[in-house]
């Protein structure tokens, strides 16, 4: 009991010692502990505009739920949990006030409304921070919880701002504050007009909220402001539609590049060799697991070089999976040439074995594959559209692989021999080409590319035993749609399917969109049974 007496004594002593101005601050802090929310809000505003450098810390403490009321004398203090109860500190002087039991203090309650208010206010107070990032974050906080008390600080911040993008955000925040709090319709109208330059879903929500009908007319009473809001809304919508289009296009190209990576190896084995490799998806999966193993080695032995792990994983996947492919060709597929349906069954069996083998070795759950530093993050565009770096890199990678493959087939002796064997096996053999070796190498090449695709897919998909299953139907669709035996067809097929899929998604939903695409391909194949780019001549008959 004597503890409280002491606390009370100290309080009284402090009370007497303070000057008139300090007294006012004391009152404000004390008012934070009031029962009514309205009183707390008033106290927050008063503190914010007091210009006292301690105000920020106190408001932050209130937001962090460190502000307590001592039950005995109603004094507002900082309290931090200790072993037996709470360690008390004076909010203004920072003086330690001793320890009290858990039941002797009561937390100053902060409801959702207050929390928003606090965030906005704190945001306003950090608007003048020397850090550009902090200022930008503060501006966004103000935008989300507009508050008239901040307006003078905001004006000051805009005046002093040198960074153009931060200034934009500050102006956006000021417009929001003016719209929400200004009593003059001309100010509100000007603010609404300012917002027209921001193509942003949040701004759109704010402007649209003005046009909502309320009990007596509209949320925004003034006709001129509403007219301005309607116009601004139209501008923003047009902007957002444009950016969404760009975003969709990017998403579509990204999906297309993934499909291209998955299908391009198949275009070699199925398109060029005529071998239906149902284990193709598993080749992709093995590539992804190669990435996992390479990254594990990096994690354990060269943690500093983790960012370069993919540079090692790509050739490793190509070599390992390519070698597996050659083994498959020599061990199984060469006995089945000319019997495409049997090849299909045997490779399906192989895919089951590979899946189960991976499940046995690495376990049935997904394994963690990390993104290197340079693949994380995104380019933020207006209208809430973001282009993630990993997807951008995958588009680039797919195009590089495609170009490399084209050059290999068109410009190298190996490519020449591959084409020769494909077009006329007997003649190629008579010319001295070892057809068996070329078969094995071609199949290995297709599988190796699938392995590299696995490295790329490990960056955006879950690496698990079923990774390949998800791509097999899609890859076959791409190859068949594009036209068997034509790599340009595969490129066009993958891009078309990716973009169409992503443009259908907003209207039909992801699953229905996919179903529609599948049905469309099935119908398309009826019209052009050999795909977009069909090989002409007698070769197609077999």
């Amino acid at each position, binding site marked *: 009991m004597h503890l409280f007496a002491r606390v009370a004594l100290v309080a009284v002593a402090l009370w007497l010692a303070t000057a008139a101005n300090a007294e006012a601050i004391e009152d404000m802090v004390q008012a934070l502990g009031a029962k009514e929310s309205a009183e707390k809000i008033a106290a927050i505003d008063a503190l914010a505009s007091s210009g006292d450098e301690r105000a920020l810390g106190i408001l932050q403490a209130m937001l962090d739920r460190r502000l307590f009321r001592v039950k005995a004398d109603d004094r507002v203090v900082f309290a931090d949990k200790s072993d037996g109860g709470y360690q008390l500190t004076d909010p203004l002087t920072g003086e330690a006030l001793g320890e009290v039991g858990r039941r002797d203090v009561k937390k100053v309650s902060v409801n959702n409304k207050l929390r928003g208010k606090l965030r906005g206010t704190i945001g306003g107070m950090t608007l003048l921070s020397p850090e550009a990032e902090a200022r930008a974050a503060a501006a966004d906080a103000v935008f989300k919880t507009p508050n008239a008390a901040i307006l003078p600080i905001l004006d000051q911040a805009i005046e002093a701002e040198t960074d153009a993008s931060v200034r934009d955000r500050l102006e956006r925040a000021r417009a929001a504050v003016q719209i929400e709090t200004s009593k003059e319709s001309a100010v509100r109208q000007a603010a609404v007009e300012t917002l027209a330059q921001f193509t942003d879903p949040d701004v759109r929500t704010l402007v649209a909220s003005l046009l909502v009908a309320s009990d007596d007319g509209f949320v925004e009473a003034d006709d001129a402001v509403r007219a301005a809001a309607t116009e601004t809304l139209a501008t923003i919508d047009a902007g957002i539609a444009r950016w969404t289009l760009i975003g969709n296009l990017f998403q579509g190209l990204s999906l297309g590049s993934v499909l291209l990576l998955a299908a391009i190896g198949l275009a070699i084995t199925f398109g060029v060799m005529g071998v*239906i490799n*149902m284990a193709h998806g598993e080749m992709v999966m093995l590539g992804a697991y190669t990435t996992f193993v390479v990254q594990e080695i990096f994690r354990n032995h060269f943690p500093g070089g983790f960012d370069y792990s993919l540079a090692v994983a790509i050739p490793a996947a190509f070599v390992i999976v390519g070698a597996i492919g050659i083994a498959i060709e020599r061990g*199984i597929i060469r*006995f*089945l040439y000319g*019997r*495409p*349906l*049997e*090849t*299909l*069954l*045997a490779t*399906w*069996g*192989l*895919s*089951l*074995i590979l*899946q*189960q*083998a991976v499940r*046995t070795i690495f376990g049935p759950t997904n394994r963690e594959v990390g993104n290197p530093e340079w693949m994380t993050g995104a380019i933020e565009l207006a209208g809430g559209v973001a282009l993630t770096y990993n997807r951008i890199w995958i588009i680039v990678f797919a195009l590089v692989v495609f170009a490399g493959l084209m050059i290999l087939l068109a410009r190298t002796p190996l490519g020449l021999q591959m084409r020769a064997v494909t077009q006329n096996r007997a003649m190629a053999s008579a010319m001295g080409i070892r057809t068996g070796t070329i078969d094995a190498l071609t199949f290995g090449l297709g599988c190796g590319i699938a392995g590299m695709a696995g490295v790329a897919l490990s960056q955006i998909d879950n690496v698990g035993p079923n990774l390949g*299953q998800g791509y097999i*139907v899609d890859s*076959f*669709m791409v190859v*068949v749609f594009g036209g068997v035996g034509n790599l340009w067809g595969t490129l066009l097929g993958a891009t078309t399917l990716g973009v169409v899929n992503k443009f259908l998604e907003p209207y039909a939903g992801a*699953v*229905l969109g*996919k*179903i529609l695409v*599948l*049905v469309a*391909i*099935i*119908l398309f*194949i*009826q*019209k052009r*049974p050999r795909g977009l780019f069909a090989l002409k001549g007698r070769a197609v*008959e077999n």
Partner: protein
Amino acid sequence: MVRATYTPLLARLGTGGTIFLAVLIAAAIAVPILNQAVPVTSAFHVPTYLVSLFGKYLCFALLALSVDLIWGYCGILSLGHGAFFALGGYAMGMHLMREIGDRGVYGNPVLPDFMVFLDWAELPWYWYGFDNFAFAILMVALVPGTLAFVFGWLAFRSRVTGVYFSIMTQAMTFALLLAFFRNDMGFGGNNGLTDFKDVLGFDLQASGTRVGLYVASAIALGFGFLLSRYLVTSRLGRVLVAVRDAESRTRFLGYRVEYYKLFVFVLSAVLAGIAGALYVPQVGIINPGEFSPANSIEIVIWVAVGGRGTLYGAVLGAILVNYAKSYFTGALPDLWLFVLGGLFIFVTIFMPKGVVGAVTALKDKVKPVAPRPATQGASSG
């Protein structure tokens, strides 16, 4: 060409077919007796769960028969036959759902539980009529048949053949898989249709009903076999084999190849649908998983293991592989996929004619006789 003369049915069966039918009839009679009449304590008693398991095998056998009919005799490799099986199953499942009536969890006399759960106000139009058993049975044949007709008509007319056709059928079953997973399709989404109570007033849990369903499956398989056998030994069957072995030549001889293919494809889909309809009440559930492309490919391997182009080989393969599956998934679950995968590779490379072909080859080796009359199977696909 010689006009096909009338041949008695038994003669058309051939030795293998006759043995198969005899075994099937014996099993159809013996299992119910061993289950119902032999006391539980006896060593010869067949427990009810086994009866249902055998019934399930028979449904798979009918499904394999339907695939053999098109693959073995007409060279059409369908990787989407599971879709027809599942559609038949769903048609039957919808009837069984309506049969539950107000005994469901929510007690709604009209709406199945999952619709009540999704807050649906009334029955979707495509559920009308399924409370009637005869209508449901009609749909079991009609729905897969219609899908096969439309799909086949489009595909065969534009001469989508071989591998392309296989991949398209796979896309078809994949699209259906995705569609049936959707809750708003009105087929129970992910969970499918289940919690069935009775069929035609017989309790589905009762051993008598189980035996009845088993016998019905055996009869369906028997008739399916007789019909298929009749078909492939008829003139039409010879045209089918001709299409399989030399499609272009058959067309040049004046046959409308696409009509023959369409006919046998639709018939096969209907058989698969019937198999699905008999399967659902015996296992008590039908869900979108039945549409998965992997299931359809597995059916093909049953046929390949047994030996295609023999009909009874397909039945044998279905039962062998499924028995092995039951055994391995129970005893060594981790090994099952290795075994199944190995089976695919081994059979395609070393036993292109399946078990039946291997046995025939062995017999020929042991007892070299005068050249056998034309066998049914051929190796090209």
